[in-house]
Each structure stands twice: as structure tokens, then as C-alpha cells.
């Protein structure tokens, strides 16, 4: 008898790509792309005249250039467009220097600011970007320009990767982790360690003590939300607040931040129904900056 069993991978989130049906690009249009190679997810967006046309979200592999190519090909899939149709490509994110086809690399801070401005409009002043390995609180002006920002330490505490670890530990599919964490009658005390490795140990201890999965998850999510709220307060909260990055899809996080800060975030667009995905905000921003850079290049 085999001793190994096929372990289900609860952390594994779904890759997907989307094409906006109402846009039909022609060769007269200015087509640009943004590729955001994050630590966990690689996102690529294609824009036609500054309007989102298609995007793809994939997992980042061990090879950044490969991941960038994969994400961009995923965004171009079924669009009929080729890599050569893209006038300008901007690379961004953790692996931005490793995007081989990019004309320019720009920090993800500038791209998320621009992307949040594009998704939610000019009323956005504070952007919380919760990525796979870092959290950034960014203050922006009505044009999507960065005013100031703060970043967490080099630590995965309170990030998307931490959530993946917890999904695996508690055997809850990652996409259900937000709603599951809200299934508690009373909000438990947050776990004392936000460090992923220590929090995992603490969570195992709590499970042995007889806590339900939901309660443990709520305690961890609460600790993460407190950390994010602190970062927002340090940069200076100014409404409207939005959450971008993978964790914007985690309703457990978003609702807890709202409770702690006492403000409502602008709602996460319904990306399942085809709306702009805030997880790809960096890629949208990069594609918009690509358009601006291309136009500037043409003028000179």
C-alpha cells in the first residue's frame, strides 16, 4: 500500500484571462501592455487607446522572464493580437527587471497608483496594495500620481502568501478563505504573531486547544488587518480608500480593515462577472503608463 496520498492544494488559486467583448482593436489603435510580475502572481493587461481590452492572471514560476511571457501570452490569448502589435510594454512588480519584452521597467507603486485611479476613478486618495510578499500604502492625487507611500518590512507577514499557507494548513480553498473567516459569532483576539512561520505554529496550537478552523482563520485575518490598518494610519488615511492586489478579493480582510479604520472602502469590482480585476491594478497602470510613454516618445 502506498503511504503517500495525493494532497489537495488548497492554496492554489485559479488562473484566468478575460477579453472585453465591446472593444474591437484595429491596426489604427494604440495598443499597449503592462506586465506585472509579482512574487506570487503574474498579471498582464492589454489596453486599446487607454481602455482595458484584455488581461490574464497567472502564477509566477521560478523563472521571472518565463512568467512574464506566460502572463502576456495569456492576456493575448484568443484576442487575435500578436506581441508585435503592442506598441509599448511596461514591466513592473517584483520581477520587473526580468521582463524581456518590456520597453521600460517602472516601480509597482507608480503602476498601482495609476491602476487604482483607472479602476475606481479620481476620488481615490489612499491605495492599499496587498501583494504576495509585501503591503504598500500609497497616497495618490486625482490624476493617479503618487504623493507618498509606505511599505512593510521585508517580511511576508500579513500578505497573500501568508494566506496561502493558512489555506493549506486549515484545508480551506483559498477562494473561500474570506467568507470562511467571517463565519464566527464573535471576533476572536488576533493571533499575537503576524510572522507567517510563527503564526502557523500559534494556529496549530489553537487548533489543538479546540478552536474551530473558522475561529483560527478569523484570528489570523484580524491580525493581518490590524497590520494593514496601522500602515494606512502611518501614511495618513484619506478617503476614498481602495484595496488592490490579490487580497482585495479577500472579503475577510477588506471588511476587517473597514471596521478597524471606521471607513468604507470603495467596493471591489465584480471581477467574476468580467469587471476590472483589482488584482491586476498594477498591470492596468503599467499599460496606461506605457501609452503615455509611447505618446511622449512620438512627440519628441
Amino acid at each position: 500500500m502506498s503511504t503517500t496520498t495525493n494532497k489537495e492544494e488548497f492554496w492554489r488559486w485559479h488562473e484566468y484571462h478575460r477579453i472585453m467583448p465591446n472593444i474591437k482593436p484595429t491596426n489604427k489603435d494604440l495598443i499597449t501592455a503592462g506586465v506585472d510580475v509579482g512574487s506570487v502572481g503574474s498579471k498582464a493587461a492589454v489596453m486599446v487607446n487607454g481602455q482595458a481590452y484584455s488581461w490574464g492572471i497567472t502564477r509566477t514560476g521560478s523563472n521571472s522572464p518565463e512568467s512574464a511571457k506566460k502572463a502576456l501570452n495569456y492576456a493575448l490569448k484568443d484576442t487575435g493580437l500578436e506581441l508585435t502589435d503592442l506598441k509599448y510594454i511596461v514591466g513592473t512588480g517584483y520581477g520587473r527587471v526580468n521582463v524581456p519584452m518590456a520597453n521600460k521597467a517602472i516601480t509597482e507603486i507608480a503602476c498601482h497608483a495609476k491602476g487604482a485611479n483607472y479602476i475606481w476613478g479620481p476620488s481615490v486618495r489612499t491605495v492599499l496594495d496587498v501583494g504576495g510578499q509585501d503591503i504598500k500604502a500609497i497616497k495618490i492625487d486625482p490624476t493617479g500620481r503618487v504623493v507618498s507611500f509606505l511599505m512593510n518590512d521585508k517580511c511576508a507577514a500579513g500578505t497573500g502568501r501568508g494566506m496561502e499557507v493558512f489555506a493549506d494548513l486549515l484545508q480551506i480553498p483559498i477562494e473561500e478563505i474570506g467568507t470562511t473567516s467571517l463565519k464566527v459569532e464573535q471576533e476572536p483576539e488576533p493571533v499575537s504573531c503576524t510572522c507567517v512561520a510563527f503564526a502557523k505554529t500559534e494556529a496549530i496550537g489553537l487548533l489543538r486547544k479546540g478552536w474551530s478552523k473558522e475561529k483560527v482563520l478569523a484570528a489570523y485575518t484580524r491580525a493581518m488587518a490590524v497590520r494593514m490598518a496601522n500602515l494606512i494610519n502611518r501614511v495618513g488615511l484619506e478617503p476614498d480608500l481602495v484595496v488592490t492586489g490579490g487580497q482585495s478579493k479577500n472579503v475577510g480582510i477588506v471588511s476587517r480593515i473597514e471596521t478597524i479604520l471606521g471607513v468604507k472602502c470603495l467596493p471591489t469590482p465584480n471581477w467574476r462577472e468580467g469587471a476590472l480585476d483589482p488584482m491586476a491594478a498594477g498591470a492596468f497602470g503599467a499599460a496606461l503608463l506605457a501609452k503615455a510613454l509611447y505618446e511622449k516618445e512620438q512627440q519628441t
Partner: protein
Amino acid sequence: MDSDKCTGCAKCTESCPQKALEMVTEFIDLEDKTIAAIKEMHRKKIQYTCTTCKPETNQTPCTKACNAKAIWCVWNPSNLK
């Protein structure tokens, strides 16, 4: 440091007795601008690095060297504009 006001003259980096400042390239308003920034190694401990210059007065070598008035010390909260 206000990266919008910084002209990239690098006078502050020369004035700093702790050599805590450096010139970096940042992408601002679709341009690669050369601006002054605090060195990475000093970022988390800047309050200690700066103590010798009496930052509470806001009259440190770097603030005096800056013609663009892009540097100020947040030691004293009233300096925060």
C-alpha cells in the same frame, strides 16, 4: 524629502556629515529624474543617524544646503507642512 521640489543638485549629499544621502533615479511624471534620497541602510534608523545635526531646529547642514527647500526635519512635528 519632497521629491517634487528636489532639483537634483546633489548639494545635500555633499553637506551630510553622516553621508546618509545619495542621488537616485526615480520615475516621476513620465521622466527619469535624478533626486536625492536617504540611503537604504539609513532608512529605518534615520532618527539616530540625524541626531548629531540637531534636527529639532530644522537648521541642519542638509536643509541649509537645499536651495529648493525640499528637505525638512520631521523631528519636530510643527515642521511638517
